[in-house]
């Protein structure tokens, strides 16, 4: 998938998978949160990731601040953009009772609009980040500092999401809204507020994921679209609608991918991901951490 260092032992494979899974798990948590709340696959989330990659790069090159801060700022900007997308487009469709497929097709349309606007604005060429290889060694394995930072942000996002959903009043409201929208409405919960918060969190995580993915590899207009298969495999294998599922699924997928790349060959990585996705859909559609929504 990304930046595979020469992995030989099982420990190497585990750490490489952890490094590589971090950006896509961040994207997948946002994807799965949106599914939990609104019951549809938001395909334009891939483009949110792409924009995250480009914005981090722009901030990095034009403001000249450190890569970490650029990625964080880009994440916040993308979060706000996702909220605008919600207020401008998605909300008008949520208000009327569109079926799920129509919502997915709408998000597909938005995805195409955003992708080609990105291509128009930044060109079709891949753009590399001007980051030096800031290596430091850990247990004999080289990790760049941006990779270590990606893992740190991943764990912060995991604990943050967990804390938000289980320990705060807002989290209880969000879960209540996800379980029974009408009941929440009767209790005077504003869907607008929930929508803004969830779209912001999802957009921010997607933007962060895109920033890290870009820093590991490069930014290109089709970056998010190209990772859609892996992201969808992550959320379905883990259990759709469940942020912990995204983490479990993400690490599993990454582990399999890294092993396949190490022992079989690079060209079968995507195929192995698809195979796992198909097997999970066939045998256990609930995913690893149960979700009754599929």
């Amino acid at each position, binding site marked *: 998938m990304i930046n595979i260092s020469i992995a030989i032992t099982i420990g190497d494979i585990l750490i490489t998978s952890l490094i590589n899974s971090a950006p896509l798990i961040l994207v997948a948590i946002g994807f799965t949160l949106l599914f939990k709340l609104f019951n*549809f*696959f938001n*395909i334009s989330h891939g483009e949110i990731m792409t924009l995250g990659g480009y914005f981090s790069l722009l901030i990095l090159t034009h403001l000249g601040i450190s890569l970490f801060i650029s990625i964080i700022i880009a994440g916040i900007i993308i979060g706000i953009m996702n909220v605008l997308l919600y207020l401008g*487009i998605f909300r*008008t*469709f949520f208000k009327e009772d*569109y079926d*799920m*497929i*129509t919502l*997915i*097709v*709408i998000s*597909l*349309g*938005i*995805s*195409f*609009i955003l*992708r*080609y*606007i990105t*291509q*128009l604005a930044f060109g079709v060429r891949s753009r590399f980040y001007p980051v030096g290889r800031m290596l430091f060694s850990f247990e004999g394995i080289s990790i760049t500092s941006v990779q270590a930072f990606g893992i740190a942000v991943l764990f912060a996002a995991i604990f943050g999401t967990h804390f938000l959903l289980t320990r705060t009043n807002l989290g209880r409201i969000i879960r209540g809204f996800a379980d029974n929208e009408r009941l929440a409405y009767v209790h005077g919960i504003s869907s607008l507020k929930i929508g803004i918060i969830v779209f912001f969190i999802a957009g921010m995580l997607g933007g962060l994921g895109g920033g890290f993915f870009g820093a590991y590899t490069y930014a290109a207009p089709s970056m998010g*679209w*190209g990772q*859609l*298969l892996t992201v*969808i*495999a992550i959320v*379905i294998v883990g259990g759709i609608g469940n942020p912990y599922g995204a983490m479990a699924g993400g690490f599993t997928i990454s582990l399999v991918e890294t092993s396949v790349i190490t022992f079989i060959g690079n*060209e*079968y990585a*995507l*195929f192995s991901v*698809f195979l796992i*996705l*198909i097997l999970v*859909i*066939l045998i256990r*559609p609930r995913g690893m951490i149960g979700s009754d929504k*599929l």
Partner: protein
Amino acid sequence: MSYLPFVISVISVNLILVAVIHMQFGLTGISNFAVAAFYGIGAYTAAIISYSSETVLTLQLPFIVGVVMAGIVGGIIALIFGWIILKRRDMVVFIVTLVSIGLLQQLAKSQDWLTNGVRGIAPISYPVDQSVYVLIILALTAGIAYYIYRLKRSPYGTLLKGVRDNQLLAQATGKDTFKIKLQVFAIGSAIMSVAGALSIPLISDVSPSIFDPNQSFMVWTAMIIGGKDKIVGALTGGLIVFGFFRFAFVYLPIPSFFPDVTVTRFIILGIVLVLTLKFRPEGIFGERFTD
């Protein structure tokens, strides 16, 4: 090679795809986004069987054999694929068919022994004279469109609409909805593969870029703009999208300050799609209330 027959053939082949998606999604409710996947499978099958000179198979059989084999291979793959995913919810079908396109493209790039990798299979010549070939494609398109038109009015068509609108009720009246969906998925996808096979002399080479999600997007947009419930709508939408956005738009005298049309057409198409779903979700010819 003259240009007008080429344009007519490409539009016509794509109209087959739109008509099939109308049958699969508009009539039966199978949200199959893998149009480009089956199209590409058909194109590769026919190219490998009839034209390949550098891969494992150098059969060079007549083109008609390649076309028939494309339908068979596409149908068998659809049967296996459909058996796995069609039991699940519609949006799972949509998303898995969507990501399968990228997977096939990657496989076509890496499996040199079968597909000749990124170099692809070329050159592919017309099996008959180009003007005759256009007529064959047009006749086939008309035949498939008429078949789907008749299908909707047949008892089987009513059953398909029943599966689409109320799956539980259809099951309660003793219909095996999974089997019916699988039939429509396999037959439709086999037709798409045949369309892919027929298109290879037009594009003169088959390379991994034939697995193009943009094509699926254009076909779906065509069906939605025209109206998913009616074959007339699907064909009209197909003419609009493939006639205008695929060809005319690119060759219009556009002022030079205007950005790259090959890119902007997808932005415009996306906007048209979202606006259609907002203000006229049933499309141009659709039925507002399903019968």
